[in-house]
């Protein structure tokens, strides 16, 4: 701690904060409007009936329904309770914080001048791959072993409630909001004209609440990151020893991602700043963090059984680390192919 200085901490803290805050706001406002304006049944209405295509599609839903990892857990909990297959819900839950336009934009911006296209596409690809693999595995696991008893009871109670939920009563229970009721039910969702503006207020409030929720974890993450960046100077040699090793460096940054719990909309800025680490480690930081961190561990307990959650965490750690280290080999391949391409195109020494 000999290098700790309040002024440098403040300097780093503010720089990280003003860099990430606009993206936090953007993400939470989008989330707020989705929360109010989008009926939850939309998911099921447009999903394929067969599970494999449904899982594959759910991995991409974040592109049109962008939510960060903080917001997605309550959403999928509700969707599972309404009958969305667990495999689809988990695939969306893991992929959406990475495969969404806001995260893509922030990753692109953070790695500007650091092979932004390559890093961004790789992050999307690896995040999607892991999410889909988890979805496929869950297709083979009995739902009783995955989700909590209380949630399971809601799922089991769903079928009777579907049949009994006639449109005559028009009570908006959570089950009634489901798409199982078909298009004819949509009229009840249309607000009166004078209420439209109030829905905007509700959306803004929901976004504001999300903003505060996320800003808490973001602020803690930024504090820890600022500290880490200060202490890094004292432990430069030790960290460099870890950083240069793809296995140790990757494991270290995955643990860091778990502890920091930074929002997926802005974690790329932190990853880009970890200069001495190789790209496998940074990629693992950006893929693992949105899938599992301290705050998610608590949120996941509202959905998953304890034993399953333990296995789920181990699986994610090993799978993300393994895929990212393997991807680093592709990084080398990428560089080699680039140099070969330069040689083939007349040495490529063409000036500025």
């Amino acid at each position, binding site marked *: 701690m000999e290098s700790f200085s309040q002024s440098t901490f403040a300097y780093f803290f503010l720089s990280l904060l003003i860099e990430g805050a606009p993206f936090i706001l953007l993400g939470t406002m989008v989330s707020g409007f989705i929360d109010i304006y989008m009926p939850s049944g939309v998911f099921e209405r447009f999903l394929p009936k067969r599970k494999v295509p449904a899982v594959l599609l759910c991995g991409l839903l974040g592109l049109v329904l962008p939510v960060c990892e903080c917001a997605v857990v309550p959403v999928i909990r509700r969707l599972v309770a309404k009958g969305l297959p667990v495999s689809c819900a988990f695939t969306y839950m893991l992929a959406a914080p990475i495969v969404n336009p806001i995260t893509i934009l922030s990753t692109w911006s953070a790695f500007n001048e*650091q092979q932004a296209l390559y890093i961004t596409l790789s992050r999307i690809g690896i995040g999607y791959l892991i999410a889909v693999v988890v979805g496929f595995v869950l297709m083979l696991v009995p739902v009783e072993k995955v989700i909590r008893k209380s949630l399971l009871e809601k799922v089991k109670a769903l079928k009777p409630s579907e049949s009994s939920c006639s449109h005559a009563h028009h009570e908006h229970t959570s089950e009634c909001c489901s798409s199982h009721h078909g298009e004819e039910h949509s009229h009840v969702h249309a607000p009166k004209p004078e209420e439209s503006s109030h829905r905007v207020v509700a959306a803004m409030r929901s976004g504001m609440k999300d903003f505060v929720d996320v800003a808490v974890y973001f602020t803690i993450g930024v504090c820890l990151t600022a500290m880490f960046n200060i202490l890094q100077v004292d432990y430069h040699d030790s960290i460099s020893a870890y950083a240069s090793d793809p296995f140790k460096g990757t494991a270290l940054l995955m643990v860091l991602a778990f502890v920091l719990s930074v929002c997926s909309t802005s974690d790329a800025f932190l990853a880009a700043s970890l200069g001495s680490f190789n790209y496998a480690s940074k990629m693992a930081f950006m893929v693992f963090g949105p899938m599992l961190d301290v705050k998610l561990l608590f949120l996941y307990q509202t959905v998953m059984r304890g034993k399953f959650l333990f296995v789920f965490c181990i699986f994610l750690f090993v799978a993300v680390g393994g895929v990212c280290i393997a991807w680093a080999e592709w990084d080398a391949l990428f560089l080699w192919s680039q140099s070969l391409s330069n040689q083939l195109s007349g040495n490529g020494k063409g000036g*500025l």
Partner: protein
Amino acid sequence: MWKYVQRVLFSCCILTWGGVMLYFYQSVHLDAYLAPNFQITVLIGGLACSIVGLFNLINFRVHTDCHHGGDCGHDHEGSDLNPIVALTIILFPLIFSLVKTEHKLDDTHLAKKSAQDLDPASMRFLADLPPFTKETLEATRQKAADGFYEMNLLELFYSAGDSELERVFTGLQFETEAMLRSEPNRNPKGNRMRLYRMFITCCAADMKAIPMSVEFEGDLPIFEPNTWVKVGGEMRYEHIGGVTYPVMLVKRIEPIPSPNAGNLYK
């Protein structure tokens, strides 16, 4: 009543963040915090935070209905955390930092950071240097009155990470501007000092010192540590432990004023 208080407090929290971002956007210190391509997002974020905060503050009494019905099972304003605790976590570090920041690294941190060696090859992505030949160098770079090519220190540093650039640059004479300090590493004869510039990729937290050794034929010049200097000399490269480091043999050196804020971290 408590919901009203919560709405007002949350609105003020967002307004505070918006105010901080707008303050930094118009501040001369912004260049010390963010790389130029991130600065516009501070303006947009600051304006957006202010609008959202004001909108919610003005409408804090408005009753709303999400139209999902009363049994939706979700509360759009409920939070996992106590609002006061949440606001304390959000605002305390922010206010502390606004009070304590000096808009730069402290001297100890700067001294330690600038003493670190970096491998130019491992940081190749940071500088997208084009392929150079002596002809393209001649055509695209300005020359000082005595024929030295003017080049940023970062470019000279990263040239050590590319064997082709190393071949082209070796023996050529360049002029560059940077801060000067003692050379803590790779200085067996004691006739070297270190040029360095602080470089920001995204924000100050990722700031790195980009170093280059400068070698003198006679006595070392006497300057205050971290003085900005303009140096002209001949480029060479040394290979130690599988890493290529750039070294400039100094022909001339003079102190210069510090660059303006916009050019300090490039």
